[in-house]
């Protein structure tokens, strides 16, 4: 096979083991943080790591699933590659959920897993699994390193693939003899793979066609996805919106691409999104989708999705065009460049009357849904949305929100307010319960990576179910003194599933009520400061204490037991037909 690489021959070659070369190559690629867990088949690398502690900060997690989710959280906040290192067999398979999660959410992570020696491969050796085989369908690239000489190239190729184009997870399956074998190491980069076009260019004329549609539109509407954040194109987006005055809706992963307070920002799209942007989807004449993939949670029934609109789709991944929604004008390429060029071609417009026509929907949603969710129940129980908004406000809308999955996720992402890009970390595509706590640990390091301090608090909003899936990571928080602000929205239910049982399964609560441990005692055991809150009188003070406390803090908030996430588009429903009440 062809190995395209650029070797820095000006640097004197150094003889070292493959394991050491791996660490050197990571350092050469700017990696300074690793999340991992050791074991037999990766021990030669961990042995070398002992001498690299100055440059590589290794965070010992309490489970490999924690390690991969932390790497994801790191990558999502910093925009840099998140690295996770584990042993072979069970260590490697424990990362699978996170790899699939990173794939569907386009997160650049590198998983380094030990593997048995090359002579043992295929023999069902102790702790051998076919990791490359398992991860092929859920990774952007997976490769088995069989010789030490391959290490600089493999790491360089992995980093290039993970972070370029549409980002994604890459896997290096590192055989033991390649770790132990020696090579002459020289810094190596890969920034070209002939079969892989990482920066594709728009088709001839597509930008002009799009600009004509936009200029002639009377009711244009823009859908913003995570692509805008991944492509670091928030300023370009802002420019386009400023010039064209197009109203905007964001996907769950696109939240924070535009400040919540921006007058053109109508809010979140999709199943549990806001009413106005979902209505706008089916009212607009031109739909401009930027860096999003028309997920079924965003579109609802495809047959009734924006049939009236001409669709312009900007994406770096050509496989997204026409995948779910027929596109009239596809614009291939990096949206940072495409948005800039598009802005130049678009005429200044004022769409105030079109935007004004959508405001009644926002008012209706506020009246029927939000105004209730933001207050306690008549019998005094706190609500999730209320807590989320209070936390957001107490942090001056400057916090980085990490959520788990379930009602806690939907309500905190709905009621948090975003000021800065990349201030929401959530498992969107896979909906992985147990993502939140370890991702929040990763987010702490990701935040330090780019902001160099802990001024912006990292707030985890999680369910009682989700946190129990990864509760062991309190150990990591304790050991690393990681200042995560953990809010458990405790409803004593697997709430999201319970809501569906209530609405669609005749209230037959099959295995969704759940008993909880005493979280305060648990926190105590880990030496983590904590508090339990049950009513409105206590909540503000507790939030303030949590945010001002110097260190990790666990705030258990006992919320309404049978609250529902509203509004909602039932599965297969039309996106503009949202239920406002259950």
């Amino acid at each position, binding site marked *: 096979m062809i190995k395209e690489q650029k070797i820095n021959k000006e640097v004197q070659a150094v003889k070292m083991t493959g394991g050491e070369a791996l660490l050197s190559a990571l350092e050469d690629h700017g990696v300074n943080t690793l999340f991992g867990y050791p074991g037999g088949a990766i021990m030669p690398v961990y042995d070398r790591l002992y001498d690299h502690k100055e440059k590589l900060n290794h965070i010992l997690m309490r489970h490999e699933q924690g390690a991969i989710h932390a790497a994801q959280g790191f990558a999502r906040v910093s925009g840099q590659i998140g690295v996770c290192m584990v042993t072979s067999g069970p260590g490697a398979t424990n990362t699978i959920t996170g790899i699939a999660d990173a794939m569907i959410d386009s997160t650049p992570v590198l998983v380094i897993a030990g593997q048995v020696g090359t002579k043992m491969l295929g023999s069902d050796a102790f702790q051998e699994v076919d990791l490359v085989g398992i991860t092929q369908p859920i990774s952007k690239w997976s490769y088995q390193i069989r010789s030490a000489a391959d290490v600089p190239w493999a790491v360089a190729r992995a980093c290039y693939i993970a972070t370029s184009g549409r980002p994604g997870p890459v896997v290096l399956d590192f055989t033991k003899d390649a770790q132990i074998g020696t090579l002459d190491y020289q810094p190596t980069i890969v920034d070209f793979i002939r*079969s892989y076009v990482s920066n594709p260019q728009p088709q001839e004329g597509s930008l002009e066609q799009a600009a004509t549609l936009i200029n002639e539109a009377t009711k244009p509407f823009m859908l913003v996805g995570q692509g805008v954040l991944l492509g670091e194109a928030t300023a370009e987006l802002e420019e386009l919106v400023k010039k064209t005055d197009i109203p905007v809706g964001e996907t769950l992963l696109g939240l924070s691409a535009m400040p919540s307070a921006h007058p053109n920002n109508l809010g979140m799209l999709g199943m549990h999104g806001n009413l106005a942007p979902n209505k706008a989807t089916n009212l607009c004449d031109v739909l401009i989708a930027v860096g999003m993939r028309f997920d079924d949670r965003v579109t609802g029934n495809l047959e009734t999705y924006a049939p009236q609109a001409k669709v312009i789709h900007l994406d770096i991944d050509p496989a997204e065009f*026409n995948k779910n929604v027929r596109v009239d004008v596809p614009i291939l390429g990096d949206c940072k460049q495409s948005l800039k060029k598009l802005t130049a071609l678009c005429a200044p417009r004022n769409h105030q009357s079109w935007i004004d026509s959508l405001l009644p929907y926002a008012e209706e949603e506020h009246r029927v849904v939000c105004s209730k969710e933001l207050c306690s129940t008549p019998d005094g129980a706190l609500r999730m949305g209320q807590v989320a908004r209070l936390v957001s406000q107490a942090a001056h809308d400057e916090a980085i929100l990490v959520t788990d999955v379930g009602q806690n996720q939907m309500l905190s992402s709905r009621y948090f307010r975003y000021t800065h890009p990349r201030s929401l970390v959530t498992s969107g595509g896979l909906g992985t319960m147990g993502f939140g706590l370890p991702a929040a640990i990763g987010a702490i390091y990701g935040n330090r990576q780019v902001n160099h301090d802990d001024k912006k608090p990292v707030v985890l909003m999680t369910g009682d179910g989700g946190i129990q899936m990864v509760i062991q990571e309190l150990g990591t928080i304790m050991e690393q003194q990681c200042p995560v602000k953990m809010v458990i929205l405790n409803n004593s239910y697997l709430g999201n599933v319970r809501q569906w049982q209530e609405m669609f399964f005749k209230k037959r609560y099959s295995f969704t009520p759940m008993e909880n441990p005493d979280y305060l005692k648990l926190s105590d055991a880990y030496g983590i400061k904590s508090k339990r809150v049950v009513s409105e009188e206590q909540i503000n003070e507790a939030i303030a204490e949590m945010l001002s406390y110097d260190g990790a803090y666990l705030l258990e908030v006992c919320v309404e037991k049978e609250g529902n996430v509203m509004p909602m588009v039932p599965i297969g429903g039309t996106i503009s037909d949202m239920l406002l009440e259950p």
Partner: protein
Amino acid sequence: MKEALYTIIVHSENIAGVLNKVTAAFTRRQVNIETLNVSASSIKGVHKYTITSRTDAINIERIVQQISKNIDVIQAHFFLDSELMHREIAMYKLSTDILKSQPAISQIIRKYSAHIIEVNEVFSILEMSGVDEEITALYEELRNFNTILQFVRSGRVVVTTSSFEHVDDFLESRNKEHKLSRESCWTKDA
């Protein structure tokens, strides 16, 4: 939506595991592969896959998009039969006794322009290349004589009638692009 037989041509780097990724694009969408032919292409280090599959226009577009997305796939395209010259090769192992005793069989062999490539006391081997239907038709005719001991077909190979082999050009332009963009000291280890 109407189904048709599509021929998919994929060029990829010669790397273990690409075949897996190519076939996975079909299995994920529950589409069957009818024939699959993998060989070296005219370009050194580049493999060529010729696949046929019966599905609809939307599915085939999505499958080919997903195949193209693989890092080590250079290009993937799909065609209808009207855009191709296609051939298959088939071998029919016949009982020599029956072949000799039934002169009508020889007539059939001539009718299909098939060749006998081996004759011994026990069996004879007939080879024929042609389009899918011809190969099946010959099989059906021979079967009436109860003479077929074994039958095997290769799967399709095709040449497109439009000028399709852009792979060369594509790789060349990729290399040029890259050389233009930086002083290169690239090493290409085989």
